[in-house]
C-alpha cells in the first residue's frame, strides 16, 4: 500500500548521504571470480521510524487513522537511511569482500573456498543486526565474468535487448 507523502517530502530537506555509483560497483566486483548476490527482504520496512516522527506519517482511512512504525517505502530519504545502515553494518567488509547498494549486496571472492568464508562473515553480520534476505532474489556462487550480463538479466533492470545483446554475447 502506498501513501502519498508529497507534502511531507517537500518539508524535508534531502539527505545528502552518498549512494555508491553503479559504475563503481560493477568495476569493483567484475574482477572477482566468484560472486553472490543477496537481496534484503522487504527492504525499508526492516528499519523503524524514529519514535517521535511516527505521527508525521499518519494517514486517514474510512475507519481509523494509521501511522507507520517502520520506515515507509516512499519517504524521500529512505534510501539514504538504508545505505547508512548497510555501510555501518558492513564497514569492515565493503571494498574488501563485498559491495552494497541500498538493499542489494554483492559478495565477491577470488576462489570458491574463500567465497564460503566470505559468505559466512556476511551471514554473521546479517544475523547480528537482524537483517533478513529475500531468497528468490538471491543468487549464489555465480561466475564473476558474467556480472554485467547477470545484472542485466537477473536483477530486473529493464534494458533494450538490442543494445545489450552485444554485451551478453561477449
Amino acid at each position, binding site marked *: 500500500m502506498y*501513501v502519498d507523502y508529497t*507534502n*511531507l517530502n*517537500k*518539508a*524535508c530537506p534531502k*539527505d545528502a548521504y552518498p549512494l555508491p555509483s553503479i559504475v563503481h560497483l560493477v568495476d569493483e566486483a567484475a574482477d572477482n571470480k566468484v560472486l553472490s548476490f543477496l537481496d534484503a*527482504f*522487504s527492504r525499508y*520496512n*526492516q*528499519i*523503524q*521510524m*524514529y*519514535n517521535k*516522527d511516527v505521527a*508525521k506519517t*499518519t*494517514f*486517514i*482511512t*474510512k*475507519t481509523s487513522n494509521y501511522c507507520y512504525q*517502520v*520506515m515507509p517505502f516512499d*519517504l524521500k*530519504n*529512505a534510501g539514504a537511511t538504508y545505505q*547508512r*545502515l548497510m555501510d*555501518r553494518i558492513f564497514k569492515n567488509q565493503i571494498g574488501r569482500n563485498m559491495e552494497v547498494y541500498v538493499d542489494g549486496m554483492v559478495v565477491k571472492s577470488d576462489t*570458491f573456498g574463500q567465497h*564460503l568464508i566470505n559468505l*559466512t562473515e556476511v*551471514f554473521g553480520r*546479517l*544475523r547480528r*543486526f*537482524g537483517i*533478513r*534476505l529475500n*531468497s*528468490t532474489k*538471491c*543468487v*549464489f*556462487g*555465480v*561466475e564473476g565474468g*558474467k556480472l554485467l550480463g*547477470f545484472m*542485466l*538479466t*537477473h536483477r530486473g533492470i529493464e*534494458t*533494450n*535487448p*538490442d543494445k*545489450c545483446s552485444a554485451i551478453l554475447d561477449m
Partner: protein
Amino acid sequence: MVALTDLDPRINDEVRIKPSNDVIEWQLAGEGQNTWLRGIMTKEEVEKITQLLTKNKDLFAWTTEDMRGINPRVMSHKLFVCREARPVAQKKRRMGKEKRMATTKEVQK
C-alpha cells in the same frame, strides 16, 4: 512528431531477455521457498554451498512475520522537517468495497 515506438523500440515487443540459463533454482526450505545457485558447479561445491545456506536459512524471510527488524538503537529513520513547515493532514484515503474488505480483514489479524 516522434512516434512512441521510436523512443522505446520495445513497446510492442513481447520478447524480453530471460535469465541466462547458467543458474539453477534450489529449494532452501519449504515449498516455493527457493533460491538460485550457479548451474555449473562440482558436486563438492554444490554440497558445501547448500550446506552453508541450510545452516543459515533463518536469515531468509518469506513473510513479514519472519522479519525481526533492525534494533532502533542501531538505526531508525528520523525526519528532519523544516522549521517553518506547517502540519498537513493527509487526504482521506478512499478505497473500493473489495479493497476495503480486504484491508479490514488484514488489519484485524
